Every structure is written in C-alpha cells, then in structure tokens.
C-alpha cells in the first residue's frame, strides 16, 4: 500500500473496517505500508517486478517522489488499485490546478498569510510537479475504487473479493438509486443555495432547487449523505464508465431540470467547476485543457 499526496483518509477508512480487520489481516502479507509497517522505499524498489499481488495507491502525484513511488508500485504489483478519489480523479488536491504552480507556491509559501518572508523550500524536499495530472495518465490501474474516502464497507467488499480471487462486483448505479427521497418529476423553478430555506426532508433535494449531484455520482456510498439530509457533492466521481466528465454530466442534468433563463442560472451557480467537478477536475475535459496548458507553460 502506497500513498502519494493526500490526506490519508482512505487508509483511515480502511482501518475503519474495525473488527473485520481481524478476518482480513491474517490473510495478508504486507510488503509495503509506510505508516503501518517499517518498510522503506528502497525495500519496495528491491522487490522483483510483479512480485506483489495487490497494491493500493492512495493520493495524487504532486511531487517527483510521488511519481517515482507510483511507477515503482506499478512495476512491483500485479494488480494495482487506484484507491480513493484523489488517486482516481485528482480529488480535492486536483483543484490546485485552478492555479498554476507559481500561484500555488505564492499562496503556500511566499505570500502565506501566517508567515512573513516565506520562501519556497528547496532543500530535502522532493521537487514539486507543475501540475496535477491524473494518476492514470502516468500508469495504468487495474481497479478504481473511488470515494472520499471509500466507505469501509466498500473497502471490505473489495478486499474480500481480492482475497477470494474473485472480480470485484460494483453496482453501476448513481447515488439516486440509493436515495429514499420522493421524486415528483417537476422542473426546478429556482436554484437554491444550501443556506436558502428549509428542505422538505422527504423530497428530492434537486427538485426543491438544492444542487445535488447525486444523479451524476457513482453511488458506491449507497446514498450516505442524501439520506442523511445533505446534498451529494459527488465525491465518488462519475458512475461507470467512470472516466466521463462528471461536471459536464451534472451541468447537463441540472440544465435539464432547471431550464431557467441564463442570467438566473449564472447568478445562482457561481462556481460550477467547484460544484460539479469538486473531486474530478483533473480528469474533466476542462481540467485536461488546463493540464495541457500548464505542461505547455513548462516547455
């Protein structure tokens, strides 16, 4: 199990399998898991190619080191799993692509509001990459397990299947499939911000005007948020075939639900990319254009 730039939440979720770990762990031989087992990168590099049965890769490639780790994992693992939405779609870190790398460094270091005279560290840190490209642009993955984080249940299902040597069966449905709210098939009359009014707890949030991207999101979460009263923000990315542009789909869906005058829509939807591609900017078309732009800049 390897980890690039990320919040470590996915592995946290793995740990959250709790008691089930007891049944799973004995079946595993952990060859590399920096935060859990004391193997170094050199160990991983030292294994023969394809000697590891399954690898889980969490996080996004942000640095040269991340990239090296990813490539090494690919070389050593027979099955490489893209683990979590960062790894699958760029995730939240992918939103960094809104700015070019210099802008990022400005915010983070040079003009950091809590540090004066900050500068970009240059020693003992891996070189930072100019842009976040989806991991699968660097290497091929065998399995994608999105989610921010993937639910423990999902992880368990996957791990169990892997142990049995069976294919991982994932339902292709979107969040709506799991949503218990009622649909009346009426178009949206006004788009509401989350702070507007009180939502009818039993009725589809979208129909009420609250932007829920559940219908454009893979429902591996089984409707966790929507059934809890919150709109879906799309953390599982698009449903299979998962390399669709989730944002484009969501906009198409929402435009259909809410054929309102454009001014009204622009007024209410100020940040469509953030709304609809929150976890998938790097793998979206617009994100792809941005990546190409940053790469070109480098040249």
């Amino acid at each position, binding site marked *: 199990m390897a980890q690039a730039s990320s919040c470590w939440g996915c592995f946290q979720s793995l740990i959250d399998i709790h008691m089930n770990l007891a049944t799973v762990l004995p079946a595993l031989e952990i060859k590399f898991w920096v935060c859990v087992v004391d193997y170094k990168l050199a160990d991983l590099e030292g294994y023969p190619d394809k000697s590891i049965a399954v690898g889980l890769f969490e996080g996004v490639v942000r640095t040269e080191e991340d990239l090296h780790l990813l490539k090494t994992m690919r070389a050593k693992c027979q099955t490489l799993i893209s683990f979590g939405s960062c790894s699958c779609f760029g995730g939240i870190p992918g939103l960094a692509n*809104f700015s070019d790398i210099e802008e990022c460094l400005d915010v983070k270091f040079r003009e950091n509001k809590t540090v004066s005279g900050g500068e970009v560290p240059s020693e003992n840190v891996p070189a930072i990459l100019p842009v976040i490209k989806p991991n699968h642009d660097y290497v091929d993955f065998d399995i994608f397990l999105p989610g921010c984080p993937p639910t423990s249940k999902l992880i368990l299902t996957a791990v169990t299947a892997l142990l049995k040597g069976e294919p991982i069966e994932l339902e292709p449905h979107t969040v709506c499939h799991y949503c218990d709210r009622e649909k009346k098939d009426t178009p949206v009359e006004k788009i509401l911000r989350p702070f507007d009014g009180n939502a009818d707890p039993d009725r589809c949030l979208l129909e009420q005007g609250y932007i829920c991207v559940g219908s454009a999101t893979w429902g591996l979460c089984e409707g966790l948020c929507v059934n809890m009263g919150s709109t879906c923000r799309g953390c599982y990315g698009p449903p299979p075939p998962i*390399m*669709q*542009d989730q*944002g*484009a*789909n969501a*906009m*198409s869906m*929402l*435009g*259909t639900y*809410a*054929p*309102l*005058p*454009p*001014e009204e*829509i*622009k007024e209410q*939807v*100020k*940040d*469509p*990319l*953030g709304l*609809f*591609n929150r976890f998938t900017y790097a793998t*979206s*078309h*617009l*994100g*792809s*254009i*941005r990546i*190409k*732009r*940053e*790469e*070109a*800049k480098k040249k």
Partner: protein
Amino acid sequence: MTTEPTETTNENEEWEPRIVAYCCNWCSYAGADLAGTSRIQYPTNARILRVNCTGRLSPEFILAALDMGADGVLVSGCHPGDCHYTSGNLKARARWAMMETAIEQAGVDPRRVRLQWASASEAQLFADGVREITEQVKELGPIRSEWK
C-alpha cells in the same frame, strides 16, 4: 477521448482555427443549407455536425471538442420558444450558462464558444455567426496558444 490532438496546419501556413459547429436539424442546419442555396459566403473553418436538437447536446460535447483541440465551438439552434421539440433549446441554454462560467473558471477564453439562435430562414444570421466566431477565435489564436 485522450487521443492527442494533431496539428493539421503547417507552421508557415497561415493558421486557420478549427471550429466544431453543432447545429440542430430544424433551424440552424436548415439555415446553413439556406446560406448555401443563397450563396452567402462565410469562412470555411466550421465543420457542421447535425444533431436533432440543441437539447441533445450535453456540455460534454462542447468540452470534449475543446479538449480534443478545437479552437472554437459553435452551437446553433432554434430561437428560444421556437424549438421543433418544444423546449430542447431552453435546456441547452441553461446548460450553456453553467458551462460558460466553468470554461472561464478553467482559464479558457469563453469567446471560444458561441451559442446562437438562427432559424431556418435566417441564413445570413447563421453565416454571420460562423464569421464572428471564426474571427473571434482567430484573434485569440490557437487554443494551444492559451498556454504558450
């Protein structure tokens, strides 16, 4: 969708923008036909793709085209209220509003995309639209140049 776009133009030739034009069958495609039969001349840059209705167009089609290297995308349909399918164009218009903002957010000049309404009898309007986006995109340069 990740196929690398290729340059079709030679460096020393004058660069010509590549524009994907989605036209609805009932109004704008017919309008483009009429532009032809009326011998209205307009730039050669747009490649018209016929769709039944602008309502058929997900932003995906526009964004994918840009991603594949289109320098501009034109969407032309029936006037709001005149949709052959009642309201497809209203849906297209709403989608467009969000997409336009998104495009801007992503740092792509929104003048690369154009949504216009041209009925079957508005050949001139159609041709003007093609001319306009072509000229606009020419001004902006190749989509690649945005990151040069």
